[in-house]
């Protein structure tokens, strides 16, 4: 009896120690982002084909694609080592054209990968793993920094130029009757309209479509000895490589017979004469250059906004009403949302970021809603909407971003701020220099030129809550020198200066001033 008991004790102690070890080991094996740069890659492909066949026996394999491409290049081999030809293009699958059965897919990978790794190792070259766990590991060996890639206007223009305006090389539509892909001129759209994120019926998924089309064309172009696009994963998907992609400055306008100017109706049926709310003239041509894709505004199709976004909303428009579609703040797809985002540009952010998002005033509504039957002379011959829009847009005069000499005289050149003079020397505040900078910044902005009510609106950036005037009140008129308990929602003078000056400098991404003494010169000891 005693013997058995002592044995049980021994076993349980050992088991306890073992459990402890295992626990420590697992705790130590936490997934962490590796520090070494070759472990952070943009070319990591998750080989998860087997998930379509049911539960996995082992973890999925993360496969560094470029590593293999480069290794093959060194051996004077090309893509066809791994990818089989299908029609006249290479299949994206590995060593097969279809995923027959689980067994077939698994055997393909195991036999082909391992045998190649073994051969490479026999040839005394650096080679890949041949044991199960080395590929099928719970903890991914690589950390993916892959960034999705798209064709922006500049890249599109470069392709157009290289392919000599042969749109049909990429753009196609599916003709359901003839059951084949056809090209319809001036109906070009983004690939995403048909190719969704996953394969639907006979439409392959967007990532597959893109890789088949882009890489195949890049390979074939390269083979002819011409300058061609990349075939390596990292060249497109690595964030730093993406940033280095050459930007074309002059981007010719994409031509799909789209209008130059549009008169946006405030309801689907209304005519200008009986509309309750004035129509909005819209400069379509100019806005084409403000964003990188047509998708930003036109999401799913190149039709008029009002087709889906009706007054009451429709299912196609996700029940987003016309009003919301145009005015939703902080949403890049709506007019005002996009304009709001533009205010975050560093040229504008200094003044606009501290401002609270105000309710719109009537004065602002009529900035856009101009085509009003009451103000327009309806006695005139009825003219086409687009023509009316064009004339209204041309009639707009941007706010000048210059102050005449007389006005400039009223702008103090320097303001000496005496506060904190017990600790530091007074601050020389370069007032006029700042005014000139703001004038220069807004002069480059059509948005500012159109929406600022007057040149003096600029003064209201700092002299907030005061009327636009060339001699606005001083900061002290509202901000008391000492903090007061009855005005805690309003900063006292020191806070006001610092919040205003530092906030603006921060929002405009200015590095200076650094520390206190760049503004507040130290007192001589």
């Amino acid at each position, binding site marked *: 009896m005693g013997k058995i008991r002592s044995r049980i004790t021994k076993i349980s102690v050992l088991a306890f120690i073992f459990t402890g070890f295992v626990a420590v080991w697992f705790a130590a094996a936490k997934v962490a982002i590796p520090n070494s740069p070759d472990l952070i890659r943009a070319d990591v492909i998750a080989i998860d084909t087997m998930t379509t066949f049911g539960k996995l026996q082992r973890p999925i394999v993360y496969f560094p694609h470029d590593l293999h491409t480069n290794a093959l290049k060194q051996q004077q081999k090309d893509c066809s080592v791994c990818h089989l030809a299908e029609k006249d293009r290479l299949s994206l699958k590995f060593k097969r054209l279809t995923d027959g059965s689980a067994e077939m897919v698994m055997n393909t990978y195991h036999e082909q990968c391992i045998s190649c790794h073994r051969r490479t190792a026999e040839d005394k070259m650096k080679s890949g793993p041949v044991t199960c766990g080395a590929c099928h590991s719970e903890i991914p060996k690589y950390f993916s920094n892959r960034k999705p890639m798209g064709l922006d206007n500049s890249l599109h223009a470069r392709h157009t130029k290289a392919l000599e305006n042969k749109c049909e090389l990429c753009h196609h539509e599916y003709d359901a009757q003839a059951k084949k892909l056809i090209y319809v001129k001036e109906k070009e759209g983004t690939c995403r309209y048909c190719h969704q994120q996953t394969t639907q019926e006979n439409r392959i998924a967007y990532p597959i479509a893109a890789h088949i089309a882009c890489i195949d064309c890049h390979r074939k172009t390269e083979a002819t000895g011409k300058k061609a696009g990349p075939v390596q994963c990292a060249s497109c998907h690595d964030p730093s490589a993406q940033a280095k992609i050459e930007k074309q400055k002059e981007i010719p306008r994409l031509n799909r017979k789209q209008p130059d100017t549009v008169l946006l109706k405030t309801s689907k049926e209304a005519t200008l004469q009986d509309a309750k709310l004035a129509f909005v003239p819209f400069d379509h041509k100019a806005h084409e250059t403000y964003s990188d894709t047509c998708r930003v505004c036109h999401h799913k199709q190149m039709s008029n906004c009002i087709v889906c976004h009706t007054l009451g909303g429709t299912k196609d428009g996700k029940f987003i009403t016309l009003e919301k579609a145009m005015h939703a703040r902080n949403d890049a797809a709506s007019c005002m949302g996009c304009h709001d985002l533009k205010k975050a540009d560093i040229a504008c952010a200094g003044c606009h970021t501290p401002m609270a*998002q105000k309710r719109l005033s009537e004065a602002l509504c009529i900035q856009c809603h101009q085509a009003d039957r009451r103000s327009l002379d309806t006695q005139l011959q009825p003219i086409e909407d687009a023509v009316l829009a064009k004339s209204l847009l041309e009639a707009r005069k941007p706010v000048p971003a210059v102050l005449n000499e007389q006005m400039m005289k009223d702008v103090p050149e320097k303001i000496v701020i005496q506060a904190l003079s017990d600790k530091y020397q007074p601050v020389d505040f370069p007032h006029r220099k700042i005014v000139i900078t703001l004038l220069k910044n807004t002069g480059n902005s059509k948005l500012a030129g159109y929406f600022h009510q007057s040149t003096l609106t600029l003064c209201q950036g700092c002299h907030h809550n005061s009327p636009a005037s060339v001699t606005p009140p001083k900061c002290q008129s509202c901000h008391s020198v000492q903090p007061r308990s009855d005005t805690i929602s309003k900063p006292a003078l020191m806070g006001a200066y*610092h919040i205003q000056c530092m906030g603006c400098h921060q929002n405009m991404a200015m590095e200076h001033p650094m520390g206190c003494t760049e503004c507040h010169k130290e007192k001589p000891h």
Partner: protein
Amino acid sequence: MSLSRRKFLGWMGAAGTGTLLKNSSANAASNAYFSGYPNSYAILHDITRCVGCRSCEAACNSVNELPVPEKPFADLSVLETRRRTTAKAYTVVNKFSSVAKPDQSVYVKKQCNHCLEPACASACFVRAFKKTPEGAVTYDASVCVGCRYCMIACPFEIPAYEYDKALEPRVMKCTMCYPRIQKGLLPGCVQACPKEALTFGKRKDILKIARDRIGNHPDRYIDHIYGEREMGGTSWLYLSGVPFSSIGMREDLGVTPAPELTSGALGAVPIVVGLWPVLLTGIYAISRRKEKVAEAEKREAVDMAVAETRREAASQLDAALDKARKERDSAVQQAVKKALEDAKKAQQEETS
């Protein structure tokens, strides 16, 4: 009198809840719902405004007459290490890198949050901590016994201790500048902040200001006022542009005040400590009395038995004496009779 275990426990429970339900509204650490003193003050720390200049630390050091630190307050290199409040610094500013913009820094001031229902006060068994109606949680060193339960209780890890003092070490923490508040002055840090990242006022006004800021700048702020309800609410409130958990502020504290979590158990302490002796003494007394009564009865019975025997013995003696007397009398009589007869006989003989 018999007392079952069930009955006894029932009494205990009744006595306990009776004490707990006693509504003491003046006591912030009671179990009644307490939403803070209505006119208490609070301070809003707008983290998006803070530039990490350490002016608040310097001001705190001077108004509280704390020892001069090794490195001057103008030295911003101390921000590179994560710090916590100490006995020599009631407040520290820490630097974090922004989650959204890793190149930008976020500065967070740390000090006592002056909970509406302070955990430190509820853990203190000598009542050295007191939540004042103005909002400050004050500390009375004269009654402190140095157990440092407050330091364990504080969810924000704030109270520090003068470990280097051999005689009468104190617990050290921000006082919300209670003496200054009473004089109508601003707390030192608030007065000094050049960017008004700190705003002092009535808690209800401060909450309104915080909500307005979030409402006016929904893109600048996380939609949460830290301290509005954390741990039942605090007198320091925070606004941030980055998630609070990313700048070292716990978001797992819940909204229950610490005293509420412990008041049930702690409320029973006086009962248990006070009532057990009484009850047990009572039970002891009852059982003692029982013993006494039994003994007295026993003694009575014995006495009675003894008396009875004595009585019997006496009567037997009397009877024996009686009998002896009778026997003696009859013997005398017989002797007399015999003597008379003898005399008669003799007379007859003389006469015959």
